[in-house]
């Protein structure tokens, strides 16, 4: 039972972590919460939905193969990255030097815009997504681990490892770190802020898109308001890990997923989300900057 919940929590948590990375990266550079991030995640799921339709897979009860999964994953990530960059250019760049409050309102406006545009274009009803691996599973120590959970975990880990490599070992990654450490000094060193910020939005949004597809397949559903709850959860995860800190977002996401699963199983399923928030409030009161604070990457 305990091990089973741990597995479930790990799968959901790694998805939270992917979304949380986008929040944390943007926060690390611009110091504001991109509330439209959850909606980009939702658009990622829709991208996959239409790609599956395009390559002729039955969305109701259909099963996709691994290559088909990647055929949807990569273009969706690219499209989400582009949407993220566009969003930054249109909604956030003009107010970059304004107050954080106006950035926040602009983000809420962008979220409203994206969510309702999706509702208008795609309809507000829930649509089914095809399955990956048709519900096959294996057991370890009494816990049932489905193939899709394993796939979610592996894809998330690979993406996070790739991000880590990118941030640590490429020039652009170094520029992102520099800007998030000290904006003024970074600009004085000749780093192109616009480019760094664009890249940050592109990466964060692409990861959110990837998370969106995996959630869509994991739960078998896609709907325009799915970004709201996931967004709140991921934001919570980012704060839990210490916002602005990329490894923190990963740890926070996985931790939140596990807390939720265990709380749901042992205390009460109905209060599952409340337990997650209670833990968050307690953690924040004891460690006001999250578990891994910024600067200790």
């Amino acid at each position: 039972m305990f091990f089973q919940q741990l597995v479930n929590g790990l799968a959901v948590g790694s998805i939270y972590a992917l979304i949380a990375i986008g929040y944390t990266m943007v926060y690390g550079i611009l110091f504001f919460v991109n509330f439209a991030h959850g909606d980009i995640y939702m658009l990622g799921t829709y991208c996959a939905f239409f790609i599956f339709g395009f390559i002729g897979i039955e969305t109701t009860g259909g099963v996709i193969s691994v290559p088909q999964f990647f055929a949807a994953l990569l273009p969706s990530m690219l499209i989400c990255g582009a949407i993220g960059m566009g969003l930054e250019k249109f909604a956030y760049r003009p107010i970059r030097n304004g107050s954080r409050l106006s950035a926040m309102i602009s983000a809420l406006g962008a979220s409203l815009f994206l969510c309702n545009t999706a509702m208008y274009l795609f309809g507000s009803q829930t649509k089914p997504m095809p399955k990956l691996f048709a519900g096959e599973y294996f057991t370890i120590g009494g816990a049932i681990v489905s193939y899709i959970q394993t796939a979610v975990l592996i894809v998330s880990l690979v993406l996070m490892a790739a991000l880590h490599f990118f941030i640590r070992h490429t020039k652009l990654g170094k520029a992102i770190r520099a800007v998030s450490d000290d904006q003024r000094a970074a600009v004085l060193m000749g780093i192109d802020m616009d480019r760094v910020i664009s890249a940050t939005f592109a990466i964060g949004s692409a990861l959110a898109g990837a998370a969106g597809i995996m959630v869509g397949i994991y739960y078998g559903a896609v709907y325009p308001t799915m970004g709201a709850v996931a967004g709140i959860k991921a934001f919570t995860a980012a704060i839990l890990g210490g916002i602005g800190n990329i490894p923190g977002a990963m740890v926070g996401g996985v931790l939140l997923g596990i807390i939720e699963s265990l709380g749901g199983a042992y205390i009460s399923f109905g209060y599952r989300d409340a337990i997650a928030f209670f833990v968050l409030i307690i953690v924040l009161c004891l460690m006001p900057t999250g578990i891994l604070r910024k600067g200790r990457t």
Partner: protein
Amino acid sequence: MTRAHGFASAARFRAPVFVLLLAAAPFFIGNDYMLHVLVLIALYSILAESLNVIVGFTGQFSLGHAGFWAIGAYVSALLMIRLGMSFWSAAVVSMAAGYVMGVLLGLPAMRLKGDYLCIVTLGFGEIVRIFATNLEVTRGPMGIPGIPMPEIGGFSFDSERSMYYLCWASALATMYVAAKMRHSRFGRALMSVRDDELAAASLGVNMTYYKVHAFGLGGMFAALAGALYASWTTFISPDVFQFSDSANIFCMMILGGLGTIAGPVLGAFLLAGLPEVLRQFAEFRLIALGLLMIILMIYRPGGILGSYDTVGAVKKVRRRKIDREVQGTNVTQNK
């Protein structure tokens, strides 16, 4: 200072006109639907105005205002139905409940700031909603139907018009209290907390007291809006009090003008009124609203009625913070 006086004297002329217009409106508006929208605007005005005490005056982020609204609605509805209390005493008790919850929520605010406070308040709103969904006494997702209307001496507020007057009277009272508070010792203390905590604390302003009471007062008036809402619609369920409502109330306050008195009400007219008036463009109205919010923030970041002072203050504090960080003083984003 001259500007503050200028604003006050302008308000002296503007406020009575506004009140007269509101009092006369039902005589010119024939259909109940428009009155219905105006009642909704009155309730959102109370909510945005009360949030303004927390965010606009005291500078504490709060994204869980729908939580107080829900507490007010549920406490008042349950007291009336289960204990048979009158609306008036139920409303007073629910306001007290809102105040106590506000004070409790204000406690973490002593340690947390900015986005961390944001998420704690957001969590509060969600926790309230989850409890309302799961508790037996609130009947979970089914909600509470048949909430009685307010009554006084045999007169029942059962028509749209009577609720209109009751709700706007409450909204105007909230505005009046906020306006009085702004220029009182208490209000100035709140604003000093917002503008520079360090300076305020060293001048002897008791941080804990003012922060906690700002949350308490904000929660109290939001609970009043909740009590009115419950009796007006006669039905409440957890779906009514979502995070999107908290965000919506927040936007009303910012769009109208943070820290001003008339701003949040103007914001309520815009964000609660426009979508109703534009119902025939149902599909586009929320898309347009999102765009409007972005465009407004680009061209009028202080809100429609906002003075640039508030925005300037936020900016200044931020710049100073960055400077301190540059100088190597250990000032983190949240401490």
